[in-house]
């Protein structure tokens, strides 16, 4: 009896830990969804009448047990109208239905009652009105419309000059461009190395395999150090001296940029691709290769014409793992050219369309920057969460598309897998 109870105690401890992990996973997901979407939901405009006779109009940005923080009309510049109000001082709290909220193009928000012109006249610095809403009067459907519009603005526009408002389009494009460029660089090299390792067994092959395995777990920041020291200061500065001497001392390739970041990430993800493709090649039954050889194919023809196409699911698995690792790696980028606010996109309409020497923006770095280095922390943290959610969506979409593709290919080659 005691024996059985002790067994049960152990089992339940393990099960409880597993439950804790599930709770952690769900909690993280919910937190990310809630905090990432909350910035787009239209907040009601609150009117507070205080005991000392003052009347404050604005939106509540944070509330604590004994006080709340109100954002009033930012007349002169962004972030100049926060006030902390103790709950004990509040006499009355209402949501006037005629309250107007103006979103200005430079990121400021203005609140008032009455018509738009009168509210706008209260601003000390003039600015274009981006959106005028009456959130208190709106029904749920209108609110959902506002929410969708705010989210679309976040994904589809550029940030404003203060970097506290506006959208994240350049960072989104920067992230996707970087990952695609990295994939184009890493896949041929990774596949070539995997084929080499599959065909050869000598000393050279063993040392290549050793190097790949050894570097698989090296921290990403060390790759960043290599990118900065070798690519940027070494190769980039050399290119500048030889080809862009007329522009010096302004660096062209001698400072961080898209190309160096993509190369660094390609090195970072190489081991993953090599290991995954090689495993895929090894899983294919020997009979297939023997059959090809019996029909007169050379060893190379068997690999390129037969084994590699059959190993396509494994190639895609390597790509998935590489993309997931690259999209989440922010630390090395901080050394090789990511910036908070890039003046120009690395991908645009002027020839040659892709500008590999330009600095770029990245969603992951925006998360870091908005959370820690923002001039207005009350705006920065929700913005960081929105960015983080967007980054997670990008990673999940890139992953899911590759997984779906892999599963379709797997169906086709199912008979071959052992």
């Amino acid at each position, binding site marked *: *009896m005691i024996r059985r109870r002790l067994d049960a105690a152990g089992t339940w401890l393990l099960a409880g830990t597993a439950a804790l992990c599930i709770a952690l996973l769900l909690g993280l997901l919910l937190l990310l969804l809630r905090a990432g979407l909350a910035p787009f939901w239209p907040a009601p405009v609150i009117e507070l009448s205080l005991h000392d006779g003052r009347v404050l109009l604005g939106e509540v940005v944070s509330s604590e047990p004994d006080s709340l923080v109100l954002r009033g009309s930012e007349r002169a510049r962004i972030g100049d109208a926060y006030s902390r109000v103790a709950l004990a001082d509040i006499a009355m709290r209402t949501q006037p239905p005629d309250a107007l909220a103006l979103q200005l193009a430079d990121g400021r928000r203005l609140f008032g009652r009455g018509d738009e012109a009168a509210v706008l006249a209260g601003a000390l610095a003039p600015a274009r009105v981006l959106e005028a809403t009456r959130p208190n009067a709106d029904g749920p459907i209108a609110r959902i419309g506002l929410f969708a519009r705010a989210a679309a603005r976040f994904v589809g526009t550029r940030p404003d000059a203060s970097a506290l408002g506006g959208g994240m389009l350049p960072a989104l494009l920067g992230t996707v461009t970087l990952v695609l460029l990295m994939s184009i660089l890493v896949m041929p090299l990774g596949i070539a190395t995997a084929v080499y390792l599959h065909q050869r067994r000598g000393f050279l092959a063993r040392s290549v395999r050793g190097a790949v395995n050894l570097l698989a777990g090296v921290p990403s920041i*060390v790759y960043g150090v290599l990118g900065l020291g070798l690519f940027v200061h070494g190769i980039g500065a050399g290119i500048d001296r030889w080809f862009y001497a007329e522009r010096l001392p302004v660096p062209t390739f001698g400072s961080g940029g898209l190309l160096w970041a993509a190369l660094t990430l390609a090195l970072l993800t190489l081991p993953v691709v090599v290991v995954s493709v090689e495993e895929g090649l090894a899983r294919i039954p020997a009979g297939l290769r023997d059959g090809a050889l019996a029909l007169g194919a050379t060893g190379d023809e068997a690999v390129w014409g037969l084994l590699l196409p059959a190993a396509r699911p494994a190639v895609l698995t390597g790509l998935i793992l590489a993309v997931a690792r690259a999209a989440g790696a922010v630390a090395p980028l901080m050394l090789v050219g990511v910036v908070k606010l890039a003046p120009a996109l690395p991908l645009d309409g002027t020839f040659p369309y892709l500008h590999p020497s330009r600095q770029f923006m990245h969603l992951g770095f925006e998360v870091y920057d908005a959370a820690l280095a923002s001039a207005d922390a009350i705006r920065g943290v929700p913005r960081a969460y929105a960015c983080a959610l967007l980054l997670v969506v990008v990673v999940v979409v890139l992953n899911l598309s590759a997984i779906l593709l892999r599963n379709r290919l797997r169906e086709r080659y199912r008979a071959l897998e052992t």
Partner: protein
Amino acid sequence: MPVNPVTCDALLSPDLAGAHARARRRRERVRRALVGGGTALVMAGLLAIPLFLLAGLLPWQGLPDDAWQRLGVLAAGSLRAAAFAALVAVPLGLATALFTAHFCAPRLRGWLKPSLEMLEALPTVVLGLVATATLAPWLKTEVATLLALLVALPAVLLALAFAFGARVRRAGWLPLWLLPLPVALVAIGLALGARSGTVAIAPANPWNALVVGLALGVAALPLVYSVAEDALFLVPREQAQAAFALGATRWQALTTVVLPAAGSGLVAAVLLGVSRCLGETMVVLMASGNTPIAGVDPLTGLRAISAELALVLPDTAPASTTWRSLLLAALALLAVTALLNRLAEAVRARLRRRLQGLPA
């Protein structure tokens, strides 16, 4: 009889056959060159990392004393962060792996394992954000609540197990039944903490080793879990079934048969987890406060090697003293993580050899 026209032509005319063979040889040479060249490039790139770090340090000019001192503080910071993270990731990861590999209902396992592996794809900058923006402000007042939860969760679990454990025959879906427990405990803890209003344990710095350890632990958890789970799952089912046939309970089969067989895999999981924590950058950068304080106190800030590299290196002139001392730090990080990975790989290889030698 249908005839392949190309083959047919090639067979009939010696000229065509020769051209065909030449084209094949040419293609073969091109492919060989591509494979060899690609591999050489890869090898050069991979070798460039240690070689570049070493070359940057040579000729060795020595470092001033304060640089050594600083490196010591940074190394202590990295170790402290990794140690607290391991305290979170290792028990959680190993226990969950033990449960999913040995007790779990197959359907729950089929759902739980991919979800935890998805967590691995979560960018660590997101975990850093959660740590710095949500966890750190909460822990400013609630360290005592966290400690209470740490004691309460196992205590309640043990009490429940003694009360109902003997009656529950199959534990396959137990985690889902127990899921409300941590949620309820956290809710109770939060409510009590908010009601009492007093701060029992106040951290010296809102961004401290405790916050880093929790977030970094979650970052390393999926790695520890999946390596350990794979090792446990490699143990042939027949061995556990043989133990059942001899009258062992599931728990006895786990402790006497499965654990000894897969033990080295669990060691590898721990080594890989620690290596990951040592090198992880974004979480320490965002949640540690980046104050260079040595010591073991979980409630003070720290500054890790990886964070120092990310913060200082971009603005450092190449070949200066700072640059060289940072290269040395990067080299040390590379050496330690590579060593840990090599060890883990060796341990795993031993496990595979042993299990493949066993009758399946």
